[in-house]
């Protein structure tokens, strides 16, 4: 019964979405408050219905109702509860339902927190949001119904891909979808602004928090995904420029650009129509990512089941949303007016440079990702574009932005003083030179540039804070007072830049100084890697809740005595009839010792692969710092969702 209830709720949600996509637009055009007001109620209703549907599906998974086709194909009664729960979105149908749940949640949030918006703008934003919602609801109901029944129900399910039975991956999709779908709000705001023909300061102030929230989700989601790839795939790497990784990286790049251009739009009324365009592009790239992952056009660990019909449907959605929005942009953008002029050397100029670099880098990633698909579609041969292409293009393109990143925040709005900014950054320059010089001693030029850039950006963020606080130039009490009154956005922005510095250091060191060793080992054998001595102590059989494992014991020796034990595993999941590799990782936060085992050879022994990865944990630490910076920015009073209402109340309280 619950499955039918869920199905019914989804169908009702589609009905509400269709109403909400049309009536409020008409109301806004004709000035009918009742019709505009309707959008807020339907948005809440949609969320409620999506939550009911999601709850119904979750119930089917928890109670292992194998008469529901999606459950039978992706779950198993022996699976631990956590993975029965996360298995809800571990497949195409369920993850679409999660996408819809988050989409309607964002719609409901616009309805609730957007009471300070202009009525016509809110109605139009919600209408556009409902158009996206109708598209996805129709897609789900017509091609990928998660509630479809199967008769007769199988005795037990087919299980979930063991690679996905992992806590890191369990929360990767929700965070990523939060990001993808959060960008839909920026998109809806952009399209609504084009319909209104108005992009003012209030508009930019409303767009920024949604983009910040989406960006924080994307950053955390991508980081979690790469962490999972690092410890679960057992390849010792964290980023493979896999098309599906690129599918999430492109919206991230566009959202990062949008985040920055929205600052210029809000503070200086500059780059307004560019910001509108970016908002459209960012969400279009999310949709493109959805298409790439779900249409089966890719060879990837992530790709969902192949179904051409689904691919065509998403391509259609992508075409309508992107094509429609861009056509509207071409038609209405001139009406938005030109921006306020500024000098090339100014905060606006720096933000523009940031945008140009990010968008260009995004375009090269897009080219590398789509080129093989185009060649294949026109039967011009099967090719692959791999990491060498992306490192050859992305790294040189992003490098100037890394240099400018420390300078930008030091420049004044409208007319900046480059020499003055550089002068105040002497400490960062000194630190960068020291870091680069120390690295050069190891003979790695590229590493020296990378670590120098990391020091430059990180110290630059600290210098910017201390400038704002007048540290060292004013008494401590004054600095404390300034610290307390410094806008949260300034703390958040600096923190995000600091996070980038940490990530850059982690990527550079792990790429340039990684050591790798593959060998066959018998019990008692020893190996040396990066100054560690490692002894192979043999393999034992272990029984897990729904798998069997061969577990190797590798002792890390210090002065001949065991200091730590690494226990990499090879697991076999009988239900899914699949092997997985569990890497053993010992981290000091400055470096990881990483071990994986392969199969046993009667004569030579067990294949063992060892890595020493310096600074690799910094990549994820940096990403967390970045996402945290975005959340702090999000809590800025100026951007707070209910800010207008609060400001009105303040004088009365004072």
């Amino acid at each position, binding site marked *: 019964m619950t499955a039918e209830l869920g199905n019914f709720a989804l169908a009702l949600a589609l009905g509400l979405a269709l109403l909400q996509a049309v009536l409020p637009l008409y109301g806004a055009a004709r000035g009918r408050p009742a019709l505009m007001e309707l959008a807020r109620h339907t948005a809440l209703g949609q969320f409620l219905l999506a939550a009911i549907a999601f709850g119904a599906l979750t119930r089917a998974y928890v109670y292992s109702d194998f008469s529901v086709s999606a459950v039978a194909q992706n779950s198993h009664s022996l699976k631990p509860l956590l993975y029965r729960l996360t298995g809800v979105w571990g497949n195409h149908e369920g993850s679409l339902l999660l996408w819809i749940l988050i989409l309607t949640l964002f719609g409901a949030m616009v309805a609730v927190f957007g009471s300070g918006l202009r009525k016509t703008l809110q109605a139009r934003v919600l209408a556009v949001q409902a158009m996206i919602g109708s598209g996805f609801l129709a897609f789900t109901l017509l091609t990928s119904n998660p509630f479809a029944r199967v008769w007769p129900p199988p005795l037990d399910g087919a299980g979930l891909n063991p690679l996905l039975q992992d806590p890191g991956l369990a929360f990767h999709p929700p965070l990523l979808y939060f990001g993808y779908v959060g960008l839909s709000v920026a998109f809806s705001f952009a399209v609504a602004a084009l319909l209104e023909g108005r992009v003012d300061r209030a508009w930019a102030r409303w767009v920024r928090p949604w983009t910040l929230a989406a960006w924080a989700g994307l950053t955390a989601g991508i980081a979690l995904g790469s962490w999972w790839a690092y410890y679960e795939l057992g390849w010792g790497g964290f980023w493979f420029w896999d098309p599906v990784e690129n599918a999430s990286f492109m919206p991230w790049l566009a959202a990062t650009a949008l985040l920055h251009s929205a600052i210029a739009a809000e503070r200086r009324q500059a780059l307004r129509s560019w910001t509108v365009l970016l908002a459209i592009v960012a969400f279009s790239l999310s949709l493109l990512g959805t298409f790439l992952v779900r249409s089966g056009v890719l060879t990837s660990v992530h790709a969902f089941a192949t179904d051409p019909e689904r691919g065509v449907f998403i391509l259609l959605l992508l075409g309508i949303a992107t094509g429609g929005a861009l056509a509207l942009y071409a038609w209405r953008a001139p009406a938005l007016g030109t921006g306020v002029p500024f*000098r*090339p050397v100014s905060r606006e100029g720096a933000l523009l440079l940031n945008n140009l670099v990010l968008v260009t880098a995004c375009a090269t990633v897009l080219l590398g990702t789509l080129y093989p698909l185009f060649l294949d579609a026109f039967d011009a041969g099967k090719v692959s574009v791999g990491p060498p292409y992306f490192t050859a293009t992305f790294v040189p393109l992003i490098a100037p932005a890394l240099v400018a990143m420390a300078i930008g925040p030091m420049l004044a709005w409208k007319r900046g003083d480059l020499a003055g900014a550089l002068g105040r950054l002497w400490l960062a320059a000194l630190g960068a030179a020291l870091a680069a010089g120390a690295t050069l001693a190891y003979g790695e030029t590229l590493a020296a540039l990378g670590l120098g850039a990391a020091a430059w950006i990180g110290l630059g963020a600290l210098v910017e804070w201390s400038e704002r606080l007048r540290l060292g130039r004013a008494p401590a009490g004054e600095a404390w007072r300034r610290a307390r009154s410094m806008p949260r956005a300034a703390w958040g922005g600096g923190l995000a830049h600091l996070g980038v510095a940490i990530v850059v250091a982690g990527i550079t060191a792990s790429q340039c100084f990684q050591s790798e060793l593959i060998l066959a080992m018998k019990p008692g054998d020893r190996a040396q890697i990066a100054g560690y001595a490692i002894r192979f102590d043999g393999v034992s059989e272990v029984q897990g809740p729904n798998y069997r494992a061969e577990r190797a014991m590798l002792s890390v020796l210090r002065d001949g005595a065991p200091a730590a034990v690494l226990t990499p595993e090879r697991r076999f999941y009988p239900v899914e009839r*699949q*092997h997985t590799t569990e890497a053993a990782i010992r981290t000091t936060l400055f470096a990881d010792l990483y071990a994986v085992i392969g199969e046993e050879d009667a004569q030579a022994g067990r294949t063992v692969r060892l890595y020493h990865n310096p600074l690799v944990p910094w990549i994820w630490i940096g990403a967390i710092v970045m996402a945290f910076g975005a959340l702090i920015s999000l809590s800025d009073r100026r951007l707070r969702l209910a800010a207008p209402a609060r400001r009105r109340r303040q004088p009365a309280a004072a």
Partner: protein
Amino acid sequence: MKARAMRPKRRRLALLAAALALLGGAAALALTALDDTMRFFHSPSEIAAGAVAAGREFRLGGLVEEGSLKRSGTSISFRVVDGAHGVTVHYTGLLPDLFREGQGIVAMGALDGGRAFRATQILAKHDENYMPPEAAEALRRAGKADGS
């Protein structure tokens, strides 16, 4: 007065020129990189027909022949077939979890002087029923060659 009115416009033109220069540079960079790093796909039949030069890196796809897998220590060799022809593959390292005889795989590497394939990377899809598109393509091409 007029000169001042011109200035924002000229500034905007300068910005546009800078943006175009950046985009042009990026396009040149991307296209050369694409040319240098792009890897073609070839099937065992094409290798047998002598269509692939030794030493050039490419992707090989097909099925792992039953009973062909040999190990000695960390070195592995096996044959990849497409129904019509086969090629011997040498590889050192860990095989993917789903590597199995009879399964479709994709390998990156190059031919050596003896026309054997030295793989640097081996991919097998993490799904029992799934065939990598390249492996399927190799079988399709071999089937076509037989039929004609």
